[in-house]
């Protein structure tokens, strides 16, 4: 009976120290930043870094769905370029007839295209039963080739007349908070709600944790995973919407290697690659960590430019090790 007493008293949700890992790692990196360069903490710099991390953070929220449901998406970077390309083409085409509203219409088209791209990935993985790594590696090539083809190997710039009205979506702010940050917050809140508070979220975890059990329990694993890929596509489109005003063009190199950053953010955030666990807020911390590290590389003058990638690699590994020791 002792056992019973002990477990009964376990009571409400415990604070899990392990879950704090990414936030502690973020704090450590920020602290390092402060020590390396005093201007790190300047308002503009912090605002820049946080705003910039919006792209990876938003896409990584989608990736949290995919990964926790047992999938993996290597195509997000190319998909981002492709969706950006389609959106700019659509906006430019619509601009003569719609004026500024072309932006809204283009964004809508982007969301639809993003969702369709995600659907494609999802169907190849679930209906075609192909290892997600390979399936999305395939579509990564496909999307990248499509944007190269659409841009004839060059670039697809947005119309000048659309630049001004579109600008605030990246550069504007509401009550001092940059718009991309607000957008990220909304995406994260919605993502956390769906993952932690809805049936779908539950089923996502179950599908990622043990697909057989989920199946026996009447969960359609294929549907759950496909939906996760669609959500990923939508997140990519949202990121694309706030990316366009920043750079104003889509090129064959847009979003290159973002997939690796996104997955790294998710994993640093505490979501396991084998699925079954999701840490949306951790994911955001992961995205911030990556962006802060990159920022520090620019702010500090200690490393040869050739070795920046090495230092970044070392810091990421150290951050993960710090995790372990905290656990």
């Amino acid at each position: 009976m002792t056992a019973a007493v002990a477990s009964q008293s376990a009571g409400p949700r415990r604070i899990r120290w392990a879950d704090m890992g990414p936030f502690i790692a973020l704090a450590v990196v920020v602290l390092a930043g402060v020590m390396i360069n005093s201007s790190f903490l300047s308002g503009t710099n912090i605002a820049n870094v946080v705003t910039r991390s919006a792209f990876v953070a938003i896409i990584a929220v989608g990736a949290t769905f995919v990964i926790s449901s047992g999938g993996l998406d290597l195509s997000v970077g190319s998909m981002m370029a492709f969706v950006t390309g389609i959106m700019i083409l659509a906006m430019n085409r619509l601009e003569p007839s719609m004026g500024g509203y072309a932006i809204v219409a283009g964004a809508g088209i982007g969301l639809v295209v993003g969702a369709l791209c995600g659907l494609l990935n999802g169907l190849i993985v679930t209906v075609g039963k192909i290892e997600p790594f390979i399936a999305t590696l395939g579509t990564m090539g496909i999307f990248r080739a499509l944007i190269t083809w659409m841009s004839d190997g060059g670039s697809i710039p947005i119309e000048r007349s659309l630049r001004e009205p579109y600008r605030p979506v990246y550069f504007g702010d509401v009550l001092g908070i940059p718009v991309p940050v607000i957008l990220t917050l909304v995406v994260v809140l919605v993502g956390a709600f769906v993952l932690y508070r809805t049936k779908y979220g539950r089923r996502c975890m179950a599908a990622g944790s043990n697909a057989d059990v989920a199946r026996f329990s009447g969960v359609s694993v294929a549907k759950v995973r496909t939906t996760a890929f669609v959500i990923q596509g939508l997140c990519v489109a949202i990121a694309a919407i706030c990316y366009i005003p920043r750079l104003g063009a889509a090129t064959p190199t847009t979003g290159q290697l973002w997939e690796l950053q996104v997955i790294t953010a998710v994993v640093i955030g505490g979501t396991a690659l084998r699925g079954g666990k999701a840490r949306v807020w951790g994911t955001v911390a992961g995205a911030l960590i990556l962006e802060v590290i990159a920022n520090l590389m620019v702010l500090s003058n200690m490393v040869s430019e050739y070795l920046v990638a090495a230092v970044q690699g070392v810091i990421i590994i150290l951050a993960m090790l710090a995790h372990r020791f905290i656990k």
Partner: protein
Amino acid sequence: MSEALPIPGPSPVQPALPLPAMQAAGLCKAYGPITVLTDIALDIRAGEVHAIIGENGAGKSTLMKLLSGHVLPTAGHLAMAGQPVEFADAVAAEAAGVVLVHQEILLAGDLTVAENLFLGRELTRGPMVDDRAMNRRAAEILASIGAHCHPRDPVSGLPLAQRQLVQIARALLEPRKVVIFDEPTAVLANDEVAALLAVVRGLRDRGAAVLYISHRLDEVEALADRITVLRDGRMIGTWPARGLTQRDMAELMVGRKLDMLYPPRRPAASGDPLLRVQDLSVDHGAVQGSFAVRPGEVLGIGGMIGSGRTEMFEGLMGLRPATGSAVLNGTPMVHRSVGAWQAAGLVYLTEDRKGKGLLLDEPLGPNLTLQALTEVHPRLTLDRKAEGAAVAKAVADYDIRVRSVHLDAGQLSGGNQQKLLLAKVMLTDPQVVIIDEPTRGIDIGNKNQIYDFIDALVRTGKACIVISSELPELVGLSDRVLVMRGGRIVAELTGDQITEQNVVYAATSGEGHGPQGAQP
């Protein structure tokens, strides 16, 4: 197999008058060339507990999977209340009111207890899952079957027994017409078993049809209204339970007379201890356990589920963080890992055969020789011949019933997996063996054999530690019994003190018989 059945009395009963809750006719199942079940006819009545018994590999689990839609039959029909039904999958069967509690544990480890219970049928409030309601319901249902875990515990951290109870709770969440239990008590200890039997009776009294598989014939005797016997994938017959003794059942299953179950008492062990353990403490498990075992001795470890027995020995093996000292054969064991222990002559057999014991998608050979790789394959290359011989010997020695040696371990029946696991550990030729639940899921005919095996082992001057939740086994096999409670060794029983009552008493109240403290 055509020899006359040893039971003179009852003949197979005729179908009763009211429409059976479920009916099977001509059910067959084959995996490729391997026929597992042939021509099974069964009627399952509401308000009745129907026990299915048979040797390991007889096809009981397979039959249950056919009835509950987990596996599709190669031939035959099912009907519910007279209407023919066909289940496309387990979900369809559950929708029709048929649910199976699996022999092996099927839960999503990352989810909490309550999340697992309600998976696929979450309670919601608006668009949100209603965790509070689900946790409340879960707590109720867990309490009703005597499970002590918390609804918010992650399943992966639970001991095997609690996981089994969660699985049972899952089946009972909604009212069912047919509830099938496949060896639900194999991983449970006495008081959990009692609670479960009460649950099963409750189900029956509320008009459900219960199918119940167990190798513990006392349970079958206590519960069953009717009993069906399977042997080698065929039906031997169905009898009313009242006329059958446990001995009758055993003989129907095996098809021959059975000898005495437990080996005769051995002379008291003397000599220096083979293994001496001092102040062993394990995170979340044992506290300062000290004990010793002598050559020629079977040391039994008793206690309730959750008393920390498994943890203590996993800690000893270096499989969990632990502190304390150990001396094997006079040599202090400083670096404790499974490999180091094995080299020094001690092995541990896990209670979790699916999770920690066998590679389910590998064939028999690699599984059997995994632990004794260097013994079986002394040279650089793998010795396929030696491995084949080892498999053949294990199959013979442990009576592993496989229809083909090329099957993967996961395709063996539960009991045969257990035998394979036992054979695997024994292949290393240890001095001291720690066996956690040695006969879990093994049929009555083979238990015998395993007991004899343990007996023969210690008679050659080796030693064996047996952790068991089956009291008769613990009492019948051990020369000495340590009882654990709350992670501590609370009693040591020797000689005539070793009775079921004393073990239970020590395990629950802590006032053990015999000298206080566990030092031998």
